[in-house]
């Protein structure tokens, strides 16, 4: 089986200064990779290279013919980067995901597709709401709809579990596991404990990339991969979240 994406000895960064160095990775159609690492480790940079937002400084990235360039990649950015005061409705945000198919859809088709995906995600009732009126969980659902509406073959998610409660987090991973039957998923998270058990494999990103072919990882393995993050158990994490909430 050919990989959908093959990354060869790739370095990338900003202002010609590499953030990620000599990365090698093959992404196959049924992969569900959780990318973890410290802040500044290059997790988002890796997603930007895959999505075409950033050009490699050296090395290469090859896309399988099946992907037809970057048109089959769905991207969910960090919602902290979204302008929540922008005058745009949920319907328009989701419809913007059809930009990939521009010229091929008429308005009636677009409306039908948007309505269908909003209904499937259980948020049809908020389609006329402004983006700024939504909760963190609703906003993540909306942006997930935008990423999925063009039926991508690879889904890139940048910290989808931030600003959401535990209930939504559970729903999200359940949905992603079901989506993984149809598409490859690369999920970036700063919280290794939240993705363990949900993803299939783990990639530790701290400048370089260390691929871990299992969905659980120990503190010792993280240290061996030169990935300076601490494992937090679910019990401790829930308590911490509760304390923050209070």
């Amino acid at each position, binding site marked *: 089986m050919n990989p959908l994406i093959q990354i060869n000895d790739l370095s990338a960064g900003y202002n010609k200064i590499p953030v990620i160095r000599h990365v090698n990775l093959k992404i196959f159609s049924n992969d569900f990779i959780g990318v973890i690492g410290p802040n500044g480790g290059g997790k988002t940079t890796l997603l930007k290279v895959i999505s075409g937002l950033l050009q490699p400084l050296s090395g290469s990235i090859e896309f399988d013919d099946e992907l037809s360039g970057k048109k089959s990649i769905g991207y969910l950015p960090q919602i902290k980067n979204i302008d929540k005061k922008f005058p*745009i409705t949920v319907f328009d945000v989701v419809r913007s995901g059809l930009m990939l198919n521009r010229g091929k859809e008429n308005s009636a088709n677009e409306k039908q597709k948007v309505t269908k995906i909003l209904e499937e995600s259980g948020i049809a009732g908020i389609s006329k709401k402004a983006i700024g009126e939504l909760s963190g969980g609703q906003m993540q659902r909306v942006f997930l709809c*935008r990423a999925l509406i063009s039926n991508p073959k690879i889904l890139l998610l940048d910290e989808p579990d931030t600003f959401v409660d535990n209930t939504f987090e559970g729903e999200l991973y359940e949905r992603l596991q079901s989506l993984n039957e149809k598409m490859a998923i690369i999920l970036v998270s700063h919280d290794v404990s939240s993705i363990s058990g949900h993803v299939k494999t783990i990639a530790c990103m701290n400048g370089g990339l260390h691929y871990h072919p299992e969905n659980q990882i120990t503190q010792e393995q993280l240290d061996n991969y030169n990935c300076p993050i601490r494992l937090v158990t679910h019990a401790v994490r829930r308590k911490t979240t509760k304390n923050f909430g209070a």
Partner: protein
Amino acid sequence: MNSLTELFQYSFFIKAMIAAVFASISCGIIGSYIVARRIVFISGGITHASFGGIGLAFFIGFEPLLGAVVFAILSALGIQFFTKVAKIREDSSIAIWWSLGMALGIMFVFLTPGYTPNLMSYLFGNILTVSNSELWWMFALVFLIILSFALFYKPILYIAFDEEFARTAGLRVPLFNYLTITLVALTVVLNIRVVGIILILSLLTLPQATANLFTSDFKKMIGLSTLFAFAGTFSGLIISWWIDIPSGASIIFTLVIIFGIFRLIKHFGQ
């Protein structure tokens, strides 16, 4: 009341009303884009940079609006170039073009022999002296803006909302950014005669602030902003004639009052 009816018999007033309609449409659409995209400061830079072109036109002796158009477009593209290509901080890029335009304008006006009688109407506006040719330019601008937004409404909206996502989708983001910033520059310059360089920014932001009290839908915001812009321009014009004060200042003051009234209504209505 009779004298108000008589006012509509004067051709200069009819022209002012037509200018008010054109200004309301162009500022209603482009102002909504500026406010939504949070590029009010860029628009301020373009507006003030255009003064350099007006000064140059006075000095050499050609149509001041033409000079303003050239300087406005140059500064609009210059700010984009400085920020995106030369990697200069955006606020610094704006400040450079803003102050350069004003400095050049002041130098050229100073070097121009004799008195420059129309200078004040470019700085503070005078809608009552708008000429036929200026009306045709304003009409052409309205046509161009409506055409651009009719053809490219979705990419313009999507890029304004989330440029990064638009780039991942393969939209030609730089091309649309240059198109919209050029429309901003033209809107600023061709409406200078309505309220002047100093106040034009208000016509691009106050109606939108009022509209934003009632809607968070970009399309509805454009419609409401246009209505509020016309209400303010028309009422301001009447008030300026009534109590004999400069029209530009009167229009902006009226727009502020309209915003204040609706803000209070909304506050106490909730």
